[in-house]
């Protein structure tokens, strides 16, 4: 389990409503209001984007909105820092390939 159900110091983590959203066409669950990156992490997603020239994978690195490694296409808008963008029910997230969406075979 990636989510910490109970923490020895912090107790139970407060969470928002359980919602569904979409990642490259797949339906995933997360908690409303948590950073998109956290919901993806809980679902086991490591790669958020591929760099434009070398096509190298990138994922969460700083988790505070500074490094831009975690940017993805959110509801059609590229370069969204998923580590500081709150999850909203029904969001469509796409792995970013350079500046466009990754081709996914469904």
């Amino acid at each position: 389990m990636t989510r910490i159900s109970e923490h020895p110091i912090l107790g139970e983590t407060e969470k928002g409503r359980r919602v569904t959203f979409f990642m490259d066409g797949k339906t995933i669950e997360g908690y409303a209001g948590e950073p998109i990156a956290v919901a993806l992490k809980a679902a086991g997603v490591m790669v958020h984007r591929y760099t434009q020239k070398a096509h190298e994978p990138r994922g969460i690195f700083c988790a505070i909105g500074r490094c831009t490694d975690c940017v993805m296409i959110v509801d059609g808008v590229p370069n969204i820092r998923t580590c500081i963008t709150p999850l909203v029910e029904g969001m469509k997230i796409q792995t970013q390939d350079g500046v466009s969406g990754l081709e996914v075979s469904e």
Partner: protein
Amino acid sequence: MKRYDLIVVGAGPAGLSAAIEAARCGMRVAVFDENAKPGGQLFKQIHKFFGSKEHQAKIRGYKIGETLLAEAAEAGVEVFLNATVAGIYLDKELLVQRGEVMEHFKADTIIIATGAAENMVTFEGWTLPGVIGAGAAQTMMNLYGIKPGQKVLMLGSGNVGLVVSFQLMQAGCEVVALVDAAPRVGGYGVHAAKIARCGVPFYLAHTITKAEGSNCVTGVEIAQVDDDFAPIPGTEKHFDVDTICLAVGLSPMSQLLKMAGCNMVDDPRRGGQVPQVDENGETSIPGLFAAGDVSGIEEASSAMIQGRMSGLAAAAYLGFLSEQDKDNRLADLEIALDSLHQGMFAPGSKGKTIAKTDEGIAVSQSLLKKGYLDDADLERFINRSDQTDKKSGIHPVIECTQNIPCNPCQDACTRGCIKVGKTITALPRIDAANSCTGCGMCIASCSGQAIFLVDEDYAPGYASITLPYEFLPRPQKGELGIALSRSGRPLGYAEIIDVRSAKAYDQTTLVTIKVPVEQAMTARFYQPETNAAGQ
């Protein structure tokens, strides 16, 4: 354009403390922070802080943050979140980005308290998903309740690396190794000892040579380094990990000060490029101050004092505080700050090799290389005639062997069994003239989890050891598990004979184990058997 008497940039401990002092003097104060949550680093710190009472010692970082926020609200400070200060211009004008909107603000005084950014290192594969900063690990586990990974290798043995390693284990992750290119542990020995006794191996004078994996981290290779920090071929070691955590130092985020035109200096002891400041944090530009990590990497405890000092100085600058009141109040704060700047980890001691404690005892080399005290160290520090309580029955054993600014243990013991004295960096001593009741307050108050209660006369052939425990599941009375040594080596079975938790212990559980009397001075941790089987 909106105007304030004081604008503070950064709502961390330094910024909030500055704003509170200034607002209490009657100033109209605004604080801007780029985060969605105020508090800076504080809300990620779930351990008990060092220092003394006036520095909020033994209180967990996030609780200090809650107190500061309540005080700021009460003093009438306006805190703007999701507000990034993008620029500072002549005449103390600030450009603030809130969402898509750029706004201008004007202040009569400004305090920059933007904190620090994490340093990075590069190695083959360092950009792979799964390589993360220590701050990211803290954000994920302590703010959002998610494990950064299952198996983690930590690079960096400073306080950040040590504290975050412990926090990772508290979150339920496995820390497979702690690696540092330096030949010695950089952070507090008591923090190192906490993770060593959980069995985490230390690899000093080692570095990461590559992160393995194609789409994300699946392993890591480390190697020993020579005196020039170059990897030595043939010394490579591999670990299966899914996460590599980097804790290789912090650099002041001083760009805004530079942009404002302050005189800057390069000072490695303060962590890099920092503004030239006077004792109250005033820069070369009158009315513009810097406080906290941005003007030199230190601690939250000192950041709060520096913040308060610059808040008072700003108030005096605009005439909200008389010069005399300012001087009186600053004098007290200077003493409080000075007491933190003593001992082995003082800013002035950075980079120096320290051979002896202030008391003249040779420091533990084992602690610096492996993270735990060895038998010879025990003779020098613990088994000295003045440190052992010869009376029968329960008594404290204090394994705190470095001069760090900390003394909650002394305040905790109302029986007077523990003495630090006036200089808070002095080593705590046992006063055997006073008898210990076994109340456990010293264990729970010790920020370094370095105090144990030992009773060699618990039962014929058996000793009892009471130790601090901050993991889940909490052990149950009657349970049988494994006693671990200071290095995390299994010593044999241990029975849990008591489990205590109390509000005054603040989430630290006091676990008492029964072990063969020969282990009275070697058993220092407890591991439930289920875990032991899994490893």
